[in-house]
């Protein structure tokens, strides 16, 4: 076999960090090659260099044995390389066809796009690799898995033979992952070479032929997937064993912290986005919510924190009805909130850390009072958070965007947990952060649980849900479809409930069965 891609001595520096430090990578034709490593190990940077989005400071790239330099993705596309980004690069308000042809539009004289020709070519590509999708659908109407298929079709449409998939499984439920892997096998059978980035080692072992591991910007090893175990990979990645989200002893008490009764939220068109939800979380309990994104989890959190209007039902915190309280009042009465998207809801990226630490608690001690901020108090508290929660930063005056994702998240967790809350709403608390920070966040949530905090945990990471939760509830289309004990459930089972393949009768009415 000949090496289709050969990267030698690739080095890329950003102000203050070396993202890639003399990285070597060799990929054989027709193989599925996984790139593993913690967040910040330099995987994405390497792929961006290979796709021409960024240029290496040093090193050489060979494609099919010839030395190439890519100044833009166009060059990479010309060389037969296509990339599917982790965050989909699709325009919601354009059709599938428009998204696919973008940048490679067949045109007639005069510049008009030949949509007929485009459709024919799309159908051909789809048939070759067993991928189907309606070209006239608006992208905004598609499910996550379908969007990913559009992205893959987009790359194939351009005739790419080498596909880069950046964390393709991060957004998928197990069943969708399997569909993706089937697609990947078909692509491989069709002669394509696939490079993909993944954190999840069992997935890597299932699908890949070879594995390259990066750590702190350096190549640690390239292995054949032959007798390698997840344990080996983990050690290579972090230099130690994988942390696990296990919680250990149950700390669930009899005191009800949060009670959600019969809550329904409707959207602007009058359709219910969550319907008749019943939940009870006790002090010291972590209640996990599983569900494919967009099935009402976000709206449930909105209803509890007060950013969505409840059309009927009651929310009680420690026995007090908070249904008609403002968000501010709810926060002051002890709800801590780790939002799903830390950049949009969790932080002011341009503001210094100490201001960010005060966010949401600005009317409370030590950050301030009803009218005024207390600078000294806020700064002192931020220093405390920095120390206790290991937020790695030169000082507390740097802007929040200067921190890595993991440190941003630790700041948010610290801010919420130091506010002495009685309920924590944590939406995807470890999304997009590296293994080390993830372990720290788990540790903090566990400690808070032991101290009697009630937690509502939403996560797409099913291992995390199973490991941390005392009870798991599955949501599908705005309803609770299952209530499970984490001790006897696997990610596969969860996936079945999440996609509606399995169901439970009346999960609302057997609350006591698995709580203790």
């Amino acid at each position: 076999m000949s090496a289709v891609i050969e990267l030698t001595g690739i080095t890329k520096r950003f102000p203050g960090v070396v993202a890639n430090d003399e990285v070597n990578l060799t990929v054989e034709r027709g193989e599925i090659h996984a790139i593993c490593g913690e967040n910040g190990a330099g995987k994405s940077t390497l792929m961006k260099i290979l796709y021409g989005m960024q240029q290496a400071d040093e090193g050489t790239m060979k494609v099919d044995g010839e030395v190439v330099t890519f100044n833009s993705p166009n060059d990479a596309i010309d060389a037969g390389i296509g990339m599917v980004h982790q965050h989909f690069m699709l325009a919601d308000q354009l059709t599938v066809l428009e998204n696919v042809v973008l940048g490679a539009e067949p045109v007639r004289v005069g510049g008009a796009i030949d949509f007929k020709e485009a459709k024919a070519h799309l159908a051909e590509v789809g048939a070759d690799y067993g991928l189907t999708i309606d070209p006239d659908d608006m992208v905004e109407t598609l499910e996550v898995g379908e969007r990913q298929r559009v992205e893959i079709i987009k790359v194939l449409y351009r005739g790419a033979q080498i596909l880069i998939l950046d964390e393709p499984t991060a957004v998928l439920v197990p069943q969708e992952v399997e569909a993706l892997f089937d697609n990947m096998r078909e692509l491989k059978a069709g002669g394509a070479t696939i490079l993909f980035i993944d954190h999840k080692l069992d997935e890597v072992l299932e699908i890949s032929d070879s594995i390259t591991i990066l750590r702190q910007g350096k190549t640690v090893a390239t292995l054949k997937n032959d007798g390698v175990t997840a344990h080996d990979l983990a050690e290579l990645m972090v230099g130690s064993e994988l942390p696990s989200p296990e919680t250990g002893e149950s700390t669930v008490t009899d005191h009800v912290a949060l009670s959600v009764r019969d809550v329904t939220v409707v959207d602007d068109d009058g359709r219910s986005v969550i319907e008749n939800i019943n939940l009870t979380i006790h002090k010291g309990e972590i209640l996990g919510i599983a569900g494919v994104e967009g099935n009402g989890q976000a709206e449930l959190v909105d209803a509890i924190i007060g950013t969505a209007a409840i059309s009927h039902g009651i929310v009680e915190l420690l026995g007090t009805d908070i249904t008609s309280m403002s968000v501010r009042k709810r926060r002051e009465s002890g709800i801590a909130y780790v939002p799903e998207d830390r950049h949009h809801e969790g932080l002011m990226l341009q503001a210094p850390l100490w201001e960010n630490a005060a966010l949401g608690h600005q009317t409370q001690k030590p950050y301030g009072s009803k009218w005024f901020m207390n600078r000294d108090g806020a700064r002192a508290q931020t220093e405390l958070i920095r120390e206790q929660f290991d937020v790695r930063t030169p000082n507390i005056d740097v802007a929040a965007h200067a921190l890595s994702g993991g440190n941003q998240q630790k700041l948010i967790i610290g801010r919420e947990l130091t506010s002495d809350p009685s309920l924590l709403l944590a939406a995807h608390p470890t999304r997009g952060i590296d293994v080390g920070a993830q372990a720290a966040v788990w540790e903090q949530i566990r400690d808070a649980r032991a101290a009697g905090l009630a937690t509502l945990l939403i996560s797409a990471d099913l291992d995390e849900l199973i490991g941390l939760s005392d009870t798991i509830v599955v949501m599908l289309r705005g309803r609770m479809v299952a209530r499970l004990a984490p001790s006897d459930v696997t990610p596969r089972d969860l996936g079945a409930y999440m996609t509606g393949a399995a169901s439970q009768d009346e999960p609302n009415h057997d609350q006591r069965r698995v709580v203790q």
Partner: protein
Amino acid sequence: MGILQKLHALPAWIRWPLYALIGIFLLTVVQSISGTDRLTQVSTSREMLRWAVPIFLAGLGGLFSERAGVVNIGLEGMLILGMWFGAWGSIEYGAWWGLVIGMAGGGLGGLLHAIATVTFQVDHIISGVAINILAPAIARYLSDEIWASPTTSPRTSSVGDLDVPFIAGGSIFGWESPDVLLEIGKAEWWFVSDVADLARGLLRGTHWVAIIAVLLVPATTWLIWRTRFGLRLRIAGENPAAGEAQGINIVRYKYVAVIISGALAGLGGAFISTELSGLFQGGNSAGRGFIGLAALIFGNWRPGGVLAGALLFGYVFGLDLKDLDGTASHALLLVNTVVLGAVLVWALKRRRTTDAVLAGILGSAAFVWWLSADAVPSWWSNILPYVLVLLVLVFFSQRLRAPAKLGEPYRKGS
């Protein structure tokens, strides 16, 4: 509900004239009650068109810019540059060149906006406001330098207008064709003659620029939705990172879009100075660049919608122009009442209580005002376009679809 859906299913070339007929019917009915005859006069629709053309061109300019993700509140300034350069070009090189040079002047304003917002990532609103302040000052300075008068220019020449033959009495090679619409208008048939009068105002003495403007609706639709250029321009406004990942030079498309935007606003400005006023005069823009932006939002970032908005706003202004005693604009209050009543019914059917209550209150207020007065002050017609836009935003904001990344700074490679 059913009726609305059926209407939506009709092809555009039937649907829009149908909407117009419904509108005229409403005007005719109101007119019969109110005892004014200005709502459907020939001069009213003529003035409407004269007002609407620059509003539409500015709004269409806004469409190019905003579809590419750049908010263009500087349209007013670009329109003023077009006014000045149009007048100057017309005086120096003749009427058609005046229009071209006016577009170039506006395009220069667009270029400035593009440099500020795309290259230097200045906030789009701030850059636009700066251009709006800068443009009249530049025009004033240049006027003073070149024409030795800071506010007015000598007479300009005009590319002229057209009487449509056979229906509005245009002549062909010296032969005067029949003026059918005039005859129908004279016949005083209820509604039919009103339609004829309004149509005649549009088809007799029609400025060439107005004809170009109307042709720009299908041309723009084709360009933006059917061509490679259009698709790439839209991706710059919907998801520039996605475009960049496909190797599209987003910066270039944004530049081109904003320059086209300025050029179209400039054409609107040149139309004001060379075709309407016959000279450059500071202040003649009368805020039509801003109203163009309002028409853009009203029209949901679509060319046909922008034209509809421009005509609607043009109607309000055009009506006011000849309406010295305020009785015709007063009759519009009744139109408002009826329209808000329709919104009320629509909102009730959709169970949107807040909207229904609001429409009910506003509609009743308009009705009470109509009952209790015989005329409205002229400020009312001046603010009416903005009131209309606010109402559209209040009631239909969910149906409005601005480009997803409108106004967001775009950095290459991030």
